[in-house]
């Protein structure tokens, strides 16, 4: 296992081109921003910009140099060009629901706020796609085409708040990723403002765009290749029938073995989610949905497809569950009950907030056959550090979301939480897994990147980044660590979590 860090840096006092980080906003740039979008659409006062200091990962904060509200691609292009003139970093922001620190305005970047670009421009039923602006809320798109029995398949837990632009930047997933794929599988084309201000279009509604798959490359690049200003989204027909089951297990180990069993039997459910006892209790004490409080864990299993085959499939799934010690199965009788079961899953993170002051959510992915082993490891780490670790995750994909609970005000607990986090990450990598399944690297997992990729791999990614953003102005300091050769002698790479906090007091 290669040691993290090594030649890779995670924070630089200067960037690759000698441009200093942490700098004051030049007055001329502020003027240029005001003339690009109108003075009323530029915020600089700390009382107004404080809410833009972080995203869903509240451990890390950095104040933006300014927040700019934009209406269209032309305005974004003008803002980006102004930033280029002053070699000043910028970053686009949707609703800030990300969990990896992806939209933190490192280096006091200009925040380009996309909330006003929230129009669904076209819903094309015949060709089954929609054209949307980046600020459209994920769930609104599905709502916009619901009358035609179509939906946008990626469904992050935050779908009521997160934007399509954010989904594109992070290549977001969700529970139904298991059967339907992640964001990239549902984006046909992108219009983007490149980091030099140029407006380009990649792909489109027609298949077979000649040349390289720039849509595939752009989606998931975490805003480092530019800003998505328009997306052609594939619309998926709603399944004819859906069956939602809640399988109750005495232990989380039994539940995870059932997951491995279901996948191993060649069954691909629409969704296969694991919710452990901690989450069940937190959700129950808040929402009173009728989940069994004595369960070690439950599996939320959704099957969909033709109504003709669904009962037989459900029986197969239940047989596997029973084989692994399932105590009981509740089948949603109607859509209302189905939504109720899903509510527990989708509100899990909110429920955690009610029982603990701080929590840290992970997003590693492991081979599905190793779930029981991983669950045991997480339990032992929880004991080792004396911290509660909850589990609510996309089990069918092997996409873990261990949630480490701690109290940020206790320095030892914060240290322990970060150490526990590192050990989980390390185990994920040792099992041949990925650091992130859907939340992205952001700044949060940057220091772990050298554990999965060697110097050559990272250097290759860096080269591609140079093509799009040679000046490293577009969301700098995220997604992929930078090269050693830019290191300032004697400057040690700080532990990330503290580095950022220290820098801003």
């Amino acid at each position: 296992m290669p040691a993290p860090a090594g030649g890779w840096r995670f924070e630089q006092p200067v960037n690759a081109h000698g441009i200093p980080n942490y700098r004051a906003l030049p007055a001329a740039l502020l003027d240029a921003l005001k003339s690009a979008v109108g003075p009323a659409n530029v915020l600089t006062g700390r009382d107004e910009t404080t809410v833009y200091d972080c995203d869903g990962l509240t451990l890390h904060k950095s104040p933006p140099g300014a927040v700019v509200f934009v209406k269209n691609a032309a305005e974004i292009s003008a803002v980006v060009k102004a930033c280029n003139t002053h070699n000043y970093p910028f970053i686009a922001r949707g609703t800030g629901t990300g969990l990896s620190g992806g939209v933190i305005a490192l280096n006091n970047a200009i925040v380009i706020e996309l909330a006003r670009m929230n129009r669904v421009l076209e819903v094309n039923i015949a060709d089954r796609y929609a054209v949307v602006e980046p600020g459209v809320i994920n769930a609104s798109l599905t709502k916009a085409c619901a009358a035609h029995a179509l939906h946008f398949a990626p469904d992050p837990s935050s779908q009521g708040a997160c934007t399509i632009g954010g989904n594109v930047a992070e290549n977001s997933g969700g529970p139904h990723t298991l059967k339907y794929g992640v964001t990239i599988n549902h984006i046909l084309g992108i219009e983007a403002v490149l980091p030099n201000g140029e407006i380009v279009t990649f792909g489109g509604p027609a298949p077979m765009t000649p040349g390289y798959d720039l849509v595939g490359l752009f989606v998931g690049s975490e805003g480092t290749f530019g800003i998505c200003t328009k997306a052609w989204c594939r619309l998926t027909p709603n399944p004819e029938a859906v069956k939602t089951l809640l399988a109750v297990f005495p232990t989380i180990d039994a539940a995870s073995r059932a997951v491995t069993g279901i996948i191993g039997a060649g069954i691909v459910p629409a969704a296969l989610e694991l919710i452990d006892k901690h989450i069940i209790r937190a959700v129950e004490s808040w929402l009173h949905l009728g989940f069994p409080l004595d369960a070690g864990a439950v599996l939320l299993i959704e099957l969909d497809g033709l109504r003709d085959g669904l009962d037989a499939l459900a029986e197969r799934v239940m047989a596997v569950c029973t084989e692994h010690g399932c105590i009981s199965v509740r089948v949603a009788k109607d859509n209302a009950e189905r939504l109720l079961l899903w509510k527990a899953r989708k509100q899990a993170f909110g429920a955690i907030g009610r029982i603990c002051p701080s929590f840290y959510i992970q997003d590693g992915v492991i081979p599905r056959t190793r779930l029981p082993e991983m669950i045991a490891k997480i339990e032992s780490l929880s004991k080792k550090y004396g911290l509660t670790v909850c589990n609510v995750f996309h089990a069918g994909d092997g996409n873990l979301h261990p949630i480490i609970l701690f109290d940020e005000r206790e320095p030892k607990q914060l240290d322990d939480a970060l150490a526990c986090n590192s050990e989980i990450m390390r185990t994920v990598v040792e099992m041949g897994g990925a650091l992130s399944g859907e939340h992205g690297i952001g700044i949060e997992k940057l220091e772990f990147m050298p554990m999965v990729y060697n110097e050559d791999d990272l250097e290759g990614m860096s080269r591609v980044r140079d093509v799009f953003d040679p000046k490293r102005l577009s969301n700098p300091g995220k997604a992929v660590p930078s090269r050693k050769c830019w290191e300032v002698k004697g400057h040690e790479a700080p532990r990330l979590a503290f580095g950022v906090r220290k820098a801003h007091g």
Partner: protein
Amino acid sequence: MIDWVSQLQARFPQRTRTSTAEFAVGGMRPAIALSPANNNEAAQIIGFAAQNKIPVIPCGRRTNQELLAPPPSDFLLISTRSMESLIHHEPGDMVATVQAGMRFYAFSDAIAAQGQWLPIDAPPGATIGGIVAANTHGPRAWGYGKLRDMILGMTVVNGDGVLRKCGAKVVKNVTGYSLDKLYIGSFGTLGLITEVTFKLRPLPAEGIFFEASFSTIAEGLSAMRAIAARNLPLEMVRVFKLRDERAMPKVVVCATGTHTELIRIENELRAAVPAVAFGDSDKEGHRSSAAQRSWVAGTRGYRRLKVFPMECGATLRFGCTSSRLDSALKVVEIHQRGHWSLGTTDGVIDISPLTAPEAARISSEFEKLSVNFAWENIVGVNIPNRWGAPRPEWALMKQIKSALDPAGIMNPGRFVV
């Protein structure tokens, strides 16, 4: 003998293939053909070529080379045929990692033994690396998606001779840039793909295959649309017409599922196109000759229709939105004699005879209609822009190529970059 040829021969005596005729590409023999046995050897060979600015043509079993422009003279051919192992297959994870030189059929057999498959259609002999580099998928992309939806990670020797990996070996991953997406369909212009990790599917329990004949392509199209509109979980629905003036256009439908599901699908098909009798369903999916061409593909591969004998002609492959399909077909309707294969948003038409002005007319009409296209298997006719007029984003693609192939040696001049 060219100097670098003898140097390579001396350095890799075991890897040098002596009969270069066997490795001819576009009728041209390579100056030397090398088949590295592992990633490191491949990296050394490409590194050497980069230093000496030698054009490199990566190849598997040469089933896709005719999709590209001919190679430059004096090229080095690097073949993956000595890298054909299944590296890892964990059935419980439904994930497999395979060397690029493994033939798709051999790979399919190996994973089928564990009840799994990769649902694409590929020509016989095609290698994994070739399929990925050419982004080959067949009619069943309609139901299962394209390669991009099935590839999890890759190992590539880029044009600078450096071995790099991207992606992961798990089914969901957003760790670093998705360079794997960039390599799919890049036709070896960024590097030599050496290993690919796939997300597999369980082999279906049962399959059905239907075909119905129509007197015109237009009737076939409307039947296909009526079927597609039912939102059934089909593998494919497509109109085929063989290259024969008496051949009737056929609508071919494939579906898989449980017995109950298939009975339902069968009933729906008959209801969707009531006036026409579908042929007997073939539950085994292995008997009918048309099935040989399409449905069997899962385990035995897509038997591509034999390339027509011709003096001048080409295959036109195109993609468009479904509402544009009729306009696109109007452009090519006079070429009814060729082999046709039409989906709801794409088509493949063999056109022969074909003149340069006619190819130019079709290209220009398609561009006006925003129909994407590629001219393939070109014989005896000059088609300078195989993929149409250069587009603004090609400049960015050229920069990406320069970043990963700085010496510009990988398949130079054969693709859009």
